[in-house]
């Protein structure tokens, strides 16, 4: 499996080439370079996945964990050090396929979407950097390598959100994303250090005896790591950066803020899953509660947003909440008894990456056509953009959980796992699934049916996007149609053994009914030219509507905490202390030295005999000191 190193090297080379020489290349050449390298990586990833899974299970019925590369990068002492390498196990291989597929689609799509943009080469350079970082993250052999690439994806996300660097909103959003995730990563880093100290290794499989003797420190370390994961995966209340991150180009939102980077937190928890189950079982329910609350909160907010990318952003947050719930409701590593959620979470990660990338790319196609993010500029677009319409509908059906689209299968597993945890959790998640169906179809009808903005469409007739944009849509739609039938449990499960997915008919019936009702409601409310029900509801519950539209003022609360509390009560006094006391002390030292030298300067009067007297006097004093 030695060729796997090229999965990381090719995007890195392409990044260096485009980053250093991009300005000397034609935009098209730069784009082709980036796309070709990503295509090669995709082929390699598929080949790796094929080889890995076709090599079969070991004697214990588990796919072996392979490490084609692992070298000591930074030794701390004889045993502890940071390794860099490539590790292949079922979830890493699954992620390779997901990331490279979505990345390739986004590369192709960007040819059309970003055509004629200033900085086209820079855009492709950053895409390559992101692809490299994300792939490095998933094949990390140890938690520290993961952290290094974790920060790299953060940087590339920052660079790409702020791609339109002349737009103040984009700059603010990129800073916000970086600062919030960095803030969370502080927890991650502390968690890693505690873990490294007590486990004596940064690897994923430490000695059990050391962990047992560490007592409460391992749950603490895992909890702090989850904080980092929550920041990256936009869990409440650290989700505030993700909706703003939509200021970046839409393909970037599809790649980074929907399909790959934001699920890094889920991947992190999945990676540490055996430790969570083994040493911090009390922590998992809290992950589930946070995930469930996030899913509910984001779904409610998504129901009233008018910017289509924001709706999708909140739906992403909600869906990641689902994945977190699925991991959190696990109580053991046995998929038949309390460990189903692990498989469900990874399955949903896989299907969600495909249909959410499809949704975002579809949204990009729409924005490309009408030059606006607002739903008010859309409506009735199905006549103008048939391909986008069909693929978007497929993705909406998938995320709503309608058979036979992929979302149905993975969501059903999550619901089954939730019901296994507690009926309350199960019903809450079912309700959120219903909300999901409702807001997605509100979005769908708002864009493609509903009231058409005739004035705008007459002035600028929307037309279907070019082939290089619709082709990825069609491909992803096909994947969304068939991905549900992949026997996912045969590849990934919590204990590594083959697990055969079986649909629980009761749960499936309930969730299907709820989703269909929600879709029906959305159709009744939004598919018409006029929407009296919506307006009536909005005016009747205007307080609630306004609060939800303003995302329940979470951003304002954060602003209040940071600006009013932290800045004013902590930072300002500390800054005053620094400026006046600390700086003052050193200024005083400097001034005293200047004063003293001014005073003793006349001694140097160019009279050599005077010097000699001073010299002699000094010598005499020294002698006296030495004598007595």
């Amino acid at each position, binding site marked *: 499996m030695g060729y796997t190193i090229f999965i990381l090297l090719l995007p890195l080379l392409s990044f260096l080439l485009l980053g250093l020489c991009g300005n000397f290349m034609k935009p098209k050449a730069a784009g082709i370079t980036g796309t070709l390298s990503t295509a090669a990586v995709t082929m390699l990833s598929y080949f790796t996945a094929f080889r890995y899974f076709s090599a079969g299970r070991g004697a214990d019925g588990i796919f072996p964990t392979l490490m084609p590369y692992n070298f000591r990068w930074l030794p701390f002492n004889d045993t502890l050090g940071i390794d860099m390498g490539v590790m292949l196990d079922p979830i890493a291989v699954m992620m390779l396929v997901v990331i490279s597929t979505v990345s390739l689609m986004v590369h192709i799509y960007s040819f059309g979407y970003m055509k004629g943009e200033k900085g086209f080469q820079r855009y492709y350079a950053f895409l390559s950097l992101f692809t490299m970082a994300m792939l490095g993250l998933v094949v990390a052999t140890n938690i520290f390598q993961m952290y290094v690439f974790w920060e790299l994806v953060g940087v590339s996300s920052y660079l790409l959100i702020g791609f339109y660097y002349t737009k103040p909103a984009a700059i603010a959003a990129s800073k916000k994303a970086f600062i919030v995730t960095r803030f969370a990563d502080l927890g991650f880093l502390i968690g890693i250090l505690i873990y490294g100290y007590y486990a004596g290794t940064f690897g994923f499989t430490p000695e059990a005896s050391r962990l047992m003797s560490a007592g409460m420190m391992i749950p603490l370390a895992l909890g702090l790591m989850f904080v980092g994961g929550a920041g990256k995966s936009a869990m409440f209340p650290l989700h505030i950066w993700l909706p703003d991150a939509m200021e970046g180009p839409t393909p970037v939102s599809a790649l980074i803020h929907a399909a790959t980077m934001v699920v890094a937190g889920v991947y992190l928890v999945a990676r540490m899953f055996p430790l969570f189950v083994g040493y911090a079982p009390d922590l998992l329910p809290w992950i589930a509660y946070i995930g469930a609350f996030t899913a509910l909160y984001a779904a409610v907010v998504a129901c009233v947003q008018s910017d289509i990318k924001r709706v999708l952003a909140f739906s992403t947050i909600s869906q990641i909440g689902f994945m977190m719930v699925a991991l959190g409701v696990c109580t053991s590593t046995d998929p038949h008894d309390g460990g189903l959620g692990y498989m469900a979470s990874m399955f949903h990660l896989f299907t969600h990456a495909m249909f959410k990338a499809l949704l975002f790319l579809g949204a990009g196609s729409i924005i490309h056509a009408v030059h606006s993010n607002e739903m008010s500029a859309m409506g009735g677009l199905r006549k103008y953009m048939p391909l986008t319409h069909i693929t978007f509908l497929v993705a909406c059906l998938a995320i709503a959980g309608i058979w036979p689209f992929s979302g149905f299968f993975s969501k059903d597993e999550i619901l089954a796992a939730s019901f296994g945890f507690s009926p309350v959790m199960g019903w809450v998640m079912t309700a959120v699934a219903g909300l999901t169906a409702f807001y997605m179809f509100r979005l769908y009808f708002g864009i493609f049916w509903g009231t058409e903005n005739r004035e705008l469409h007459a002035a600028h007739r929307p037309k279907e996007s070019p082939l290089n944009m619709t082709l990825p849509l069609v491909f992803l739609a096909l994947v969304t149609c068939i991905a549900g039938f992949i026997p996912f449990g045969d590849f990934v499960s919590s204990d590594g053994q083959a697990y055969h997915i079986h649909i629980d008919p009761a749960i499936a019936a309930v969730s299907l009914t709820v989703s269909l009702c929600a879709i029906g409601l959305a159709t009744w409310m939004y598919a018409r030219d006029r929407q009296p029900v919506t307006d009536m509801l909005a005016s009747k519950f205007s307080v609630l509507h306004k609060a939800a539209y303003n995302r329940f003022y979470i951003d304002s609360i954060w602003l209040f905490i940071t600006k009013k509390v932290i800045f004013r009560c902590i930072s300002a006094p500390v800054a005053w202390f620094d400026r006046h006391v600390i700086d003052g002390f050193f200024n005083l030292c400097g001034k005293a030295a200047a004063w003293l030298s001014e005073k003793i300067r006349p001694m*140097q*009067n*160019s*009279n050599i*005999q005077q010097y*000699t*007297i001073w010299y*002699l006097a000094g010598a005499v004093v020294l002698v006296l000191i030495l004598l007595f």
Partner: protein
Amino acid sequence: MDMVQMEWYLVLATVMMFCGIYGFLTRRNLLAMLISVELILNSVDINFAVFNRFLFPGQLEGVFFTIFAIGVSAAETAVAIAIIINIYRNMKNIQVKNLDKMKED
């Protein structure tokens, strides 16, 4: 005991040394100051020779060092006189109080 005692040499060397220091501090003429420096050097040379003679009679380091110091001081004097001659050529006198061209302001 007809031999001159060691203390007398040391007294002589000390007197010479302080004469040199006094001369260096009071003379205003560069040549006179140079002569005073030579006095200091020579007093040290005497000390070397005397200590060698009285305390370590079997060895020669002190004597060697004296000869070495004489050689060095001869060279140093030559350099110093060359400098003084140059000063004289530039300023038409060799009074130490005039040597303040290198000082700023």
